[in-house]
């Protein structure tokens, strides 16, 4: 027993216990460092700062009995809750029906109807597009709105500038000085592949009713291309074609078009109105009724939203 206790600190169990004890300290330390790091340091002040160690050393020494007990309680409770959730998830997963089993409860008459009649009723070869943009278009409307509301919240929280133009100019100059500058490798590679990425995004959006993909996937791809452009060439070049105004106009127009085209589902339920727009010949690029246009609208919203989110996170403005 004594030998066991001697070996404890170096054994696996001992290390695990230490990790448990000090686990939260690590987080505290890194957060404290991040907080105590210098505010935007001028370039000449490259003096290495002392990293505060007090959080690890002194606190360990000065623990009172009560604190120790509370900490043990904290660890025990955390481990219990964690194991409980893990066990719950595992049990639930074990109770799920098998993957691809034909007797699954999800295989009822609804998907059968979609699969058998989908092509005929919506004209979309890609049945998924037919489902999400025709049968269940109001679901997708809700999803687009969720994304839009998320960006609105981020704008409210992170957009920096008030109205003072002088402050705005200073912020912009500050931001420009911190940009990576002219990274020639990045710029050449970006100039080569950004057109291809954009083209792929446009392809995925326009063929949303014919092949896998659609507005969300293509919009995400295009948004990634825009972000790469901004990373490589800086915001001065991006601002020539994408400003906050562009974002506003595109988002509102696309969401408005989508809502005016499909919001009637909220009033008529799943029963669709009779439409003068015919599905067309399945397989053609201009077919499937409204689906291609809705795909374009969703793609625009997603593309602008992706870029705006990144831009807001990076410099507090679009």
């Amino acid at each position, binding site marked *: 027993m004594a030998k066991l206790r001697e070996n404890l600190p170096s054994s696996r169990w001992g290390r695990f216990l230490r990790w448990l004890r000090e686990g939260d300290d690590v987080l505290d330390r890194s957060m404290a460092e991040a907080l105590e790091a210098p505010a935007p340091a001028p370039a000449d002040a490259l003096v290495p700062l002392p*990293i505060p160690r007090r959080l690890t050393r002194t606190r360990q020494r000065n623990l009172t009995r009560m604190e120790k007990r509370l900490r043990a309680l904290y660890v025990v409770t955390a481990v219990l809750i964690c194991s409980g959730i893990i066990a719950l998830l595992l049990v639930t997963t074990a109770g799920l029906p098998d993957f691809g089993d034909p007797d699954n409860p999800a295989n009822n008459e609804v998907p059968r109807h979609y699969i058998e009649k989908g092509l005929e009723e919506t004209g979309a070869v890609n049945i998924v597009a037919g489902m999400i943009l025709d049968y269940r278009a109001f679901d997708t409307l809700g999803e687009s709105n969720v994304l839009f509301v998320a960006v609105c919240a981020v704008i409210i929280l992170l957009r920096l500038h008030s109205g003072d133009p002088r402050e705005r100019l200073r912020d912009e100059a500050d931001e420009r000085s911190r940009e990576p500058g002219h990274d020639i490798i990045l710029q050449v590679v970006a100039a080569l592949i950004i057109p291809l990425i954009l083209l792929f995004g446009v392809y995925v959006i326009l063929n949303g009713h014919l092949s*896998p*993909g659609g507005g969300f*996937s293509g919009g*995400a791809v295009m948004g990634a291309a825009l*972000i790469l452009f901004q990373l490589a060439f800086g915001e001065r070049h991006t601002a020539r074609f994408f400003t906050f105004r562009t974002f506003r106009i595109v988002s509102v127009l696309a969401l408005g078009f989508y809502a005016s085209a499909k919001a009637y589902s909220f009033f008529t339920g799943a029963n669709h109105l009779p439409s003068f727009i015919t599905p067309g010949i399945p397989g053609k690029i201009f077919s499937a009724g409204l689906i291609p246009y809705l795909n374009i609208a969703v793609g625009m919203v997603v593309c602008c939203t*992706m870029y705006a*989110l990144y831009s807001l996170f990076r410099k507090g403005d679009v």
Partner: protein
Amino acid sequence: MQVLMILLLVLVIACALAVALTKNLLTAAVVFMTQSLALSVIWLILESPDLGITEAAVGAGVDSLLLFATLKKIRAIDASIRRKEEDGHGEAP
């Protein structure tokens, strides 16, 4: 195909554990990126390429860029580099 699938699933689980256990935030973000990439290949094998495209673009691309931007904003990247230099492992800037 079965073997590839098992390998990818193991990779996803390993990456998820590594993200939780890594102490360096920058490393965690990169490992998270790897996990998304493996997931996108899994979607492809499960015959939903649209999800694969989205996972690759959002999970591996935009998500990790947002994480990097946030880490830069809270100066976590600079802090980790500085710590390395102090420990004598990093190279001179």
